[in-house]
């Protein structure tokens, strides 16, 4: 329990804190070893102590839904939303609804995407976005992709608008902020499924439910970024606005919001990426599109076809991410005076021209309008063949690995976790909390896990804990060395960071494809997916932490005659550790989300129960399970943040 590094001066209260932590730790070990002597109540909470949180939640839900009549409100809202969804659905894939103009020929959409890409960041982005749509069409996935996009096209703007309004309100009123902030903390650590269940209860299933859950899921980052942007507007800019005698409304519209532009657009980027991740997952509640297709194909173990869809989702993710990021970074540039109108609006004219020409051409050549399933290409045959070959070649290795992991690691670990008495775990967590942040942290840890124990889902939660712990451990084994390797040269760092950035834009669902391919449907596949997903932030923050070490310190170490190894261990790593821990924090968060999503492969943890709650529309149970997951995440977040803040201060890193 020596989380406080030895080189930091330990003050008297610090020593007292450590001593209490040691006592608690010893108590935890004692409780675990003496399990045989413990009364049953300390091993597992007796039934009578378990509180029916789910029933309470359901009572509240029912009251709001039926007695307060909220269901009519939500249904009305959903119907309103549906009208908008129908418009984009008509335009993109020709659903028979107003305005009955669609479907727009795929060539027009691809050209539009290319021109948008060009306008935002030049030729390379133009090629990427244009070709993505060509790929989608040629592979015969147009319909599904457009189903997915038609929801994003509505959900993203709605959630941006909501985020802007809520963010502005929160920025204005300290009281509102005080209520909103903890809510956002919980919301951002709730797994995806926890959002779906109440939506199913209030709205039902299908595209509009999918759109609503997408909106709710993607709002929090927008609220955060709006608040941040508005807070970051320099005082002098505000004062300049006051001295120019702007009214309140003028201040907001002409001074604050435009000055916060970059943060707000970063928020838009996050909204779009969250939307994509959620839309894909919303297939679980009957949302048609790429996600549903992927889910079906994965369940049927059609690896080649699901791989194709995976590529499409990944391409879409990259295009959406690059475009919105380019928009955020784009700064206004002035035109020479007297530039002709046609030159100023060159791209707009080109776009209009291309649209008209392609539309007319598509009337003559139907292939330019739509590529039917029959004409579409598919890589599935060769892909499956190649995959079969790879799997057959790797089979001895994966077989052995699977056997080894399951028999010698996973099952013993799981059994060990389940064997531990509740009291021992709680006391141990308190010891960790106390050693890091004193009594307050210890009580926070106790509260979070105590509530999980009281909810009656202890065993399921422990399985989640063991999967996450083991996965994050494996992820650090991969992430740290890769991060350290990547930090040694500017070029390497850039490349690795770019790969990490790209990997992070992928919807979590995608990570399941390769592991199912290699390991089939079992616990090892789950761990594999989680490890892949969780290693990315670790690599990222390790590189950023190490690259962020001030040059002067490294030069000082070099001049003291330190070898590379000595510099790494005694200078670079200690200074980078606070940043690296932020990566660990994110890694834990990502793992929790992934474990829950992986439930449909067949796990036995909280995620599995959540799937059941989803299929039986049990909102109360779903929420309890979701909160249990969120509490784990929040506890880790609290501990790591507290530690990193203190460490930064001790190191004078501000």
């Amino acid at each position: 329990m020596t989380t406080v590094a030895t080189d930091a001066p330990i003050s008297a209260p610090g020593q007292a804190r450590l001593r209490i932590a040691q006592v608690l730790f010893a108590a935890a070990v004692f409780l675990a070893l003496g399990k045989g002597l413990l009364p049953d109540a300390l091993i597992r909470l007796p039934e009578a102590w378990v509180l029916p949180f789910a029933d309470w939640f359901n009572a509240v839900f029912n009251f709001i839904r039926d007695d307060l009549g909220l269901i009519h409100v939500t249904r009305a809202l959903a119907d309103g939303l549906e009208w908008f969804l129908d418009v984009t659905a008509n335009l993109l894939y020709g659903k028979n609804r107003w305005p009955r103009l669609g479907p727009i020929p795929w060539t027009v959409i691809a050209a539009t995407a290319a021109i948008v890409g060009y306008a935002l960041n030049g030729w390379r982005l133009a090629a990427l976005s244009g070709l993505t749509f060509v790929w989608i069409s040629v592979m015969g996935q147009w319909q599904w992709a457009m189903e997915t996009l038609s929801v994003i096209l509505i959900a993203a703007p709605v959630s941006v608008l909501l985020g802007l309004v809520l963010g502005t309100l929160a920025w204005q009123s300290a009281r509102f902020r005080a209520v909103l902030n903890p809510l956002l903390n919980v919301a951002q650590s709730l797994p995806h499924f926890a959002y779906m269940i109440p939506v199913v209860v209030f709205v039902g299933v299908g595209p509009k439910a999918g759109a609503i859950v997408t909106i709710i899921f993607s709002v929090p980052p927008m609220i955060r970024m709006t608040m941040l942007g508005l807070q970051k507007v320099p005082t002098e800019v505000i004062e300049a606005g006051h001295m120019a005698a702007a009214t309140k409304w003028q201040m907001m519209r002409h001074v604050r919001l435009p000055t916060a532009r970059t943060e707000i657009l970063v928020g838009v980027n996050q909204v779009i990426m969250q939307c994509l991740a959620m839309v894909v997952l919303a297939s679980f509640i009957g949302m048609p599109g790429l996600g549903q297709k992927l889910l079906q194909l994965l369940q049927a173990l059609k690896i080649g076809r699901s791989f194709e869809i995976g590529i499409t989702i990944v391409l879409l993710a990259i295009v959406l991410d690059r475009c919105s990021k380019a928009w955020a970074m784009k700064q206004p540039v002035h035109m020479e005076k007297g530039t002709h109108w046609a030159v100023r609006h060159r791209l707009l004219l080109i776009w209009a021209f291309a649209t008209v020409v392609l539309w007319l051409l598509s009337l003559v050549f139907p292939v330019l309008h739509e590529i039917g399933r029959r004409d579409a290409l598919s890589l599935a045959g060769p892909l499956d063949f190649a995959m079969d070959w790879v799997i057959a070649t790797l089979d001895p290795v994966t077989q052995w690995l699977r056997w080894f992991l399951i028999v010698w690691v996973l099952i013993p670990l799981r059994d060990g976790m389940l064997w531990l008495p509740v009291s021992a775990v709680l006391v141990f967590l308190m010891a960790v909390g106390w050693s890091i942040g004193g009594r307050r942290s210890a009580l926070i840890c106790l509260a979070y896990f105590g509530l999980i124990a009281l909810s009656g889902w202890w065993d399921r939660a422990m399985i989640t804990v063991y999967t996450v712990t083991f996965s994050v451990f494996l992820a650090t084994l991969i992430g740290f060395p890769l991060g350290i390797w990547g930090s040694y040269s500017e070029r390497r760092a850039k490349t690795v960071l770019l790969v990490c950035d790209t990997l992070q834009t992928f919807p979590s669902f995608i990570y399941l494809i390769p592991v199912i391919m290699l390991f089939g449907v079992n616990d090892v596949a789950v761990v594999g997916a989680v490890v892949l997903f969780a290693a990315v932030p670790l690599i990222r923050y390790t590189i950023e932490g190490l690259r962020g070490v001030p040059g002067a310190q490294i030069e000082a170490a070099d001049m003291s005659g330190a070898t590379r190894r000595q510099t790494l261990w005694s200078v670079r790593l200690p200074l980078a550790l606070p940043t690296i821990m932020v990566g660990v924090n994110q890694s834990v968060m990502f793992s929790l989300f992934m474990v829950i999503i992986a439930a449909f492969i067949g796990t036995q943890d909280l995620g599995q129960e959540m799937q059941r709650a989803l299929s039986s529309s049990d909102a109360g149970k779903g929420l309890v399970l979701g909160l249990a997951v969120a509490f784990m995440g929040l506890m880790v977040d609290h501990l790591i943040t507290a530690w990193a803040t203190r460490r930064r201060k001790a190191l004078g890193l501000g």
Partner: protein
Amino acid sequence: MTDAKPVISCRDVWKLFGPRPDAYLAGLDPAASFDSIRADGYVPAVRNVSLDIAKGEMLVIMGLSGSGKSTLVRCMSRLLDITGGVIEVEGQAIGDLSERELIDLRRNKMGMVFQSFGLLPHRTVLDNVAFPLEMRGQDIHTRRARAMEVIELVGLGGREDYFPRELSGGQQQRVGIARSLAIEPDIWFLDEPFSALDPLIRREMQDEFLRLQAMLGKTIVFITHDFDEALRLADRIAIMKDGAVEQIDRADRIVMEPATPYVAKFTEDIDKARVVHASALAMPVNGLSLSGEPVDGRKTISQLARVLVNDDRAILPVAGPDGALVGALDRQRALNVLLGEAQ
């Protein structure tokens, strides 16, 4: 400065930051020290300040960072509400103005230039300068024409379509100056306008500023922490410490007769000969016998150095701006200023 009504007048002005400043000030002894107020958990940013600024005067407020000079100027423009006392602008107590009246006052009377420019990043130079006019509701043609005028005035003609980030620091501050002048304010606040610029540009901008002031003749409150800058620009200098004004006076008198030990320490390293004018050092004639060529009272001692060293008269006559005799200069005393007291 006594006959004309002051443009800005501060009476016993206090600005406290803390949990309940009003209640705390009500029970506070006006002579309470900075440290005792700090010990009570309040920050006295402005402490019992009284001063008048006459029409067309340039008052430079000086002090180290944290001395309250920026806060004082923000109280004068009511970017901050004062805790106690009265600030009057042209006889009107600004604390009593409604939001509407305050907006009107700013739209017609006040301009301000900021240390880090405070430009709107998403607007071109032209739109930045036209911003106060736009807020005032002027139509696009009038405000663009007026903005172009001031842009030409500060020497940025041809750059009006640039965005702030495309300009150098000096150019950005020119935009800030142009913006503050767009509404033709009577009162001009400048909060360390040149501190963020490097020394050569700073010098250039000071010259530019003096040129503008010679043309426009505004009432100016100028903040700086650079004593040389204050000496170049000021009619009067106010030196602040811990929120209070230690001394407010003409530069010669601050150098020659510092009111407090702090001011003395502050001005210790200044080359007095470059600051003190002959007229300020002169004593009354009172029957002294004076002869020969008089020295120009408007010149500094250092400018008169050659005369002072070469002349052999003990007492020199001093002439005013119109050539009339205004006083007598003790040559030994002047030499002491020039060379330092004889040990």
